């Protein structure tokens, strides 16, 4: 146990500061991915002139490996657009881009799964299209895609380990830094894996509970 104390417990402050960075990046990326994904999805479905643009972006975000995205945003964007200006920003932007591509398709599936009759019933009582979307479509999409959205968060958490490559000091970065001090990787990497497992487990358990609750209450929302 001495090794564990020396290699892991005594390094807890560094690990904790890395964990904070990981959580920050993941939460920001997640929030932006939901907004970005919804925008991409709506443009693809309802804004005819911009539809090809949205499709190209969605497919590009989905088809490129996260490591490529990360390096591309980090090194190409500042030269092309003059932004992002920090590694931290580049990290969450890249994660958000990739997830927004996936979430856009998730949202599209959710919207298309709503029976046409729900819309027709709303039009029949005189509701305007914007009102129908806000009151009838969007809440149902949120309910039915909630499990997939939560799942996407776990993908972000796992992908976020790669941000250490662009020197963002997240949990993985701190873990590797400590390993490289003594070259004794077993305890540290095991502990790091355990922390990621716990995060993902907590998130997916919460997601499962959420979807069970939705199904019980509304009789909708897929597993």
């Amino acid at each position: 146990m001495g090794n564990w104390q020396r290699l892991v417990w005594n390094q807890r402050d560094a690990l904790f500061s890395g964990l904070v960075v990981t959580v920050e990046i993941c939460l920001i990326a997640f929030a932006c991915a939901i907004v970005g994904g919804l925008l991409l999805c709506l443009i693809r479905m309802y804004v005819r002139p911009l539809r090809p643009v949205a499709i190209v972006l969605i497919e590009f975000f989905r088809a490129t490996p996260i490591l490529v995205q990360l390096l591309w945003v980090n090194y190409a964007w500042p030269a092309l657009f003059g932004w992002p200006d920090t590694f931290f920003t580049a990290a969450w932007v890249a994660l958000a881009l990739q997830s927004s591509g996936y979430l856009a398709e998730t949202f599209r599936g959710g919207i298309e799964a709503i029976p046409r009759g729900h819309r027709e019933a709303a039009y029949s009582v005189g509701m305007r299209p914007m009102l129908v979307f806000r009151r009838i479509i969007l809440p149902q999409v949120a309910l039915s895609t909630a499990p997939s959205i939560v799942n996407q968060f776990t993908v972000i958490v796992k992908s976020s380990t790669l941000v250490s490559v662009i020197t963002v000091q997240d949990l993985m970065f701190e873990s590797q830094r400590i390993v490289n001090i003594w070259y004794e990787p077993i305890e540290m990497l095991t502990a790091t894996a355990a922390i990621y497992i716990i995060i993902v487990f907590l998130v997916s358990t919460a997601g499962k509970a959420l979807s069970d609750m939705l199904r019980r209450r509304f009789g909708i929302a897929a597993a």
Partner: protein
Amino acid sequence: MSEVPTIRVVDVHKRFGSLEVLKGVSFEVHRGNVVSMIGASGSGKSTLLRCINHLETPTTGDIFIEGESLCFRGDAAGSRAPRPLSEINRMRRDLGTVFQQFNLWPHMTVLGNVIEAPNRVRGLSRKAAAQLGGECLARVHLEDKALEYPARLSGGQQQRVAIARALAMQPKVMLFDEPTSSLDPELTDEVLGVMRELAADGTTMIVVTHEMGFAREVSDRVMFLHNGLIEEEGPPDQMFGAPKSERFRQFIAKYLY
């Protein structure tokens, strides 16, 4: 009758690609009347009903709701332009529609479904809308289910909620599109029972149905559609007692034996 008909359908044609589903249908429905539309699948009766509330746009022809054109807006100079969606939405408030598949919104409670449009479209306060919604639910005998979610109700109960939702906009006409076709026989009766009560209260109704008993007992007039045209129409006793057209005779024979 000199009063303006509640619904006047004038020479409506509807074409989907090369398929002409409605080939020129005209009729009138007066206030308080119950009109049943019957006919085989594919005869165009559902399409006709969907044209009346403009879920389908007629290819040619027009529908008048209390004398006001649904499809066109005329100005003083006599020129006509297609009516914009915003105005069609306003006119749709006067048409309560009940669908074969109920189409309740699953994320709202029963009361939420019923008061959504009175609250958000008509602009009633939540409280006034809830009061109205309670009255509408009482008319379909479901006031005790107000706070349930639709998924917990039987098909017949869901369809009665859908009727209450349509009633809550206090429409001038109720349109029923095969309201019992996806229900078990015993659930069919509870929905038909509510519809009989509405008819007895003087509600103006157009009912697309395969329930010949209902059409015969409750309607003031029955229309038999065949291949996109009204093949025969008249009071139910005359229609069912002494059918004139051969096709209608064949059609009802299937239901009688």
